[in-house]
């Protein structure tokens, strides 16, 4: 796992639900000190930074697991520590002992705390066999951490990111305000401040599928000032895409040569040289914001190199129709605690060809709670179909197979993309209302209604639970991702 090769700052990411449970335990209103153990996965980034990923939380019962200390005020009982450090050893996870201090806005370990780490953590490191161990101390609005790496290096936690309905960042102490921003963004910083603009500029966003939905997402986010993009789509533009892919032009498809009236071989040649969708999106982004960084990856998202790029992102927009892409992104959301959203639209027609339902869906994806797998939104049959070559699929067609091409319309895509980007903005800038939800949204075009549905959670789900062998927060040491094997 080479945890000692990481030389950048360390952060902790923690799902909001888990954080709220912890807060309730640490700050019940008695002003006293309480304890817990957090078990975390680890996610080393290319930049040399490392993310600790909160996977599971064990609250120490006062007087039973959390008892008066021999040297300090309180301590976790040895039996409680032992139970969890062995789990961490077996599952290759990081053990983090937690307690709280009073005060708010800033927090630091006491010298008693640090002395106890120095006495105890070398032994814990031995037991955990190559997995980091450490401690976190919480106050209201502040978290500090002392992480011990195998090999003897010791790092302070830079920040804690809470992700759920919105993203909040806690640090050991407040940071000074930064430089003034670009006056170009004046109208929007009036809503979310210079601080919000800096969050956007610092964000790296993945867009999977640069067709009708993804091209709009790219356009909105680039204008908004998002700093870095990872664009993933293997396809080239087709003439039938032009009515939906913003920024696309007729010359991108060698218009005329690619039209159905052209000889088949000319048409094939033209389409083989059409512009890639990721390059059209890159053009749109660069025109909107020349200083945005763009990685345009013209590969299937399941190719391991594309997946690796995805793991470096802060938020994932899933705008591809493939079930395999859903499966992979959903796995990443839960295993790497990277938030995201699935966007799509559907046009249903009955047997007589009459229009029934038309809607756009926006499904926020959040670790541990909003899971496409346990909500049965990933169809095993379609996963099987997608693994076949075209000729096979056609030869094996079934009664319930819909080989017809699905209708697709820019206004439906616009509804999904706009809401998904709006949700992203309020998530990132932490401006969600107390009444805000993470429900799956369905915007009905024909009735102008919105229906929201609360995702269900299967407590044993392989994807979103922290059961043994399941993905939640397991990071790099967790189950293999459903990518192509090389």
């Amino acid at each position, binding site marked *: 796992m080479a945890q000692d090769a990481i030389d950048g700052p360390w952060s902790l990411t923690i799902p909001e639900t888990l954080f709220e449970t912890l807060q309730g335990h640490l700050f019940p209103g008695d002003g006293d000190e309480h304890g817990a153990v957090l078990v975390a996965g680890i996610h080393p980034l290319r930049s040399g930074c490392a993310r600790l990923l909160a996977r599971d939380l064990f609250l120490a019962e006062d007087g039973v697991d959390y008892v008066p200390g021999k040297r300090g005020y309180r301590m976790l009982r040895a039996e409680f520590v032992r139970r969890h450090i062995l789990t961490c050893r077996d599952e290759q996870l990081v053990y983090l002992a937690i307690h709280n201090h009073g005060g708010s806005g800033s927090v630091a370990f006491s010298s008693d705390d640090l002395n106890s780490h120095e006495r105890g953590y070398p032994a814990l490191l031995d037991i955990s066999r190559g997995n980091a161990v450490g401690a976190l101390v919480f106050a209201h609005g502040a978290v500090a951490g002392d992480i011990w790496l195998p090999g003897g290096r010791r790092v302070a936690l830079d920040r804690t990111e809470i992700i759920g309905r919105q993203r909040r960042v806690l640090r050991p102490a407040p940071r000074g305000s930064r430089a003034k921003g670009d006056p170009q963004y004046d109208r929007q910083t009036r809503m979310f401040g210079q601080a919000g603009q800096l969050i956007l500029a610092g964000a790296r966003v993945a867009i999977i599928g640069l067709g009708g939905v993804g091209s709009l997402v790219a356009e909105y986010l680039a204008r908004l000032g998002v700093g870095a993009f990872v664009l993933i789509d293997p396809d080239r533009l087709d003439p039938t895409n032009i009515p939906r892919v913003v920024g696309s032009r007729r010359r991108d498809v060698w218009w005329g040569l690619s039209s159905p009236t052209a000889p088949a071989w000319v048409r094939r040649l033209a389409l083989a040289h059409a512009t890639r969708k990721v390059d059209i999106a890159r053009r749109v982004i660069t025109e909107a914001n020349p200083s945005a960084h763009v990685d345009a990856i013209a590969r299937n998202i*399941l190719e391991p190199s594309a997946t690796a790029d995805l793991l470096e992102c802060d938020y994932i927009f899933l705008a591809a129709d493939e079930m*395999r892409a859903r499966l992979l992104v959903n796995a990443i959301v839960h295993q790497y605690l990277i938030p995201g959203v699935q966007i799509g639209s559907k046009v249903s027609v009955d047997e007589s060809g009459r229009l029934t339902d038309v809607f756009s869906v926006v499904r926020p994806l959040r670790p541990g709670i909003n899971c496409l797998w346990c909500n*049965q939104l990933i169809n095993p049959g379609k996963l099987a179909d997608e693994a076949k070559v075209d000729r096979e699929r056609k030869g*094996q067609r079934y009664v319930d197979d819909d080989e017809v091409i699905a209708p697709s319309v820019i206004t439906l895509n616009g509804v999904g993309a706009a809401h998904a980007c709006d949700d992203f903005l309020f998530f990132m800038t932490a401006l969600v209302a107390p009444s805000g939800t993470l429900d799956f949204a369905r915007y009905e075009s024909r009735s102008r209604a919105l229906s929201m549905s609360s995702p269900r959670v299967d407590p*044993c789900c392989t994807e979103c639970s922290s059961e043994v062998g399941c993905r939640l927060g397991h990071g790099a040491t967790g189950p293999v991702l459903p*990518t*192509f094997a090389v």
Partner: protein
Amino acid sequence: MSPAVQKAIDAITGQFNRDRVLVAADREGGAYVMVEGVTLGAPFAQDDSWIGFHIPSTCPYADVYPHFVRPDLARLDGASLGEGISTGHAFPDQAALKTPGDMPARTAVQVSRRSNRKDTAGLETPLHKLLKVIQWLKTR
């Protein structure tokens, strides 16, 4: 091959005999599998058949379907093979193999049994599905 696919194949070779199970990798980490000499008998005229199928790289999430059996499959009573069983196929498609030729194509009858929902991954392994299909065939 992906670890999940390898695990599924291990389960199959554990159930049947290793030398009765042929395996060829696809281009994405999945595998084409053929099990020789699976007992059939009534209601079919044939005592046994090979059964072939594709385990996608997205195993265990993806369904395993369709399955393929010997091309001369026929009922003892002379009736048609019925719904879900169709003739005139070939298995496997050479273009889908990582190395074409690794598993030469055979003409085949296709058996279509789709499992539509999975509550969580792994509830129905490729082995489990194979046994279900064999069972289903015997109750035609």
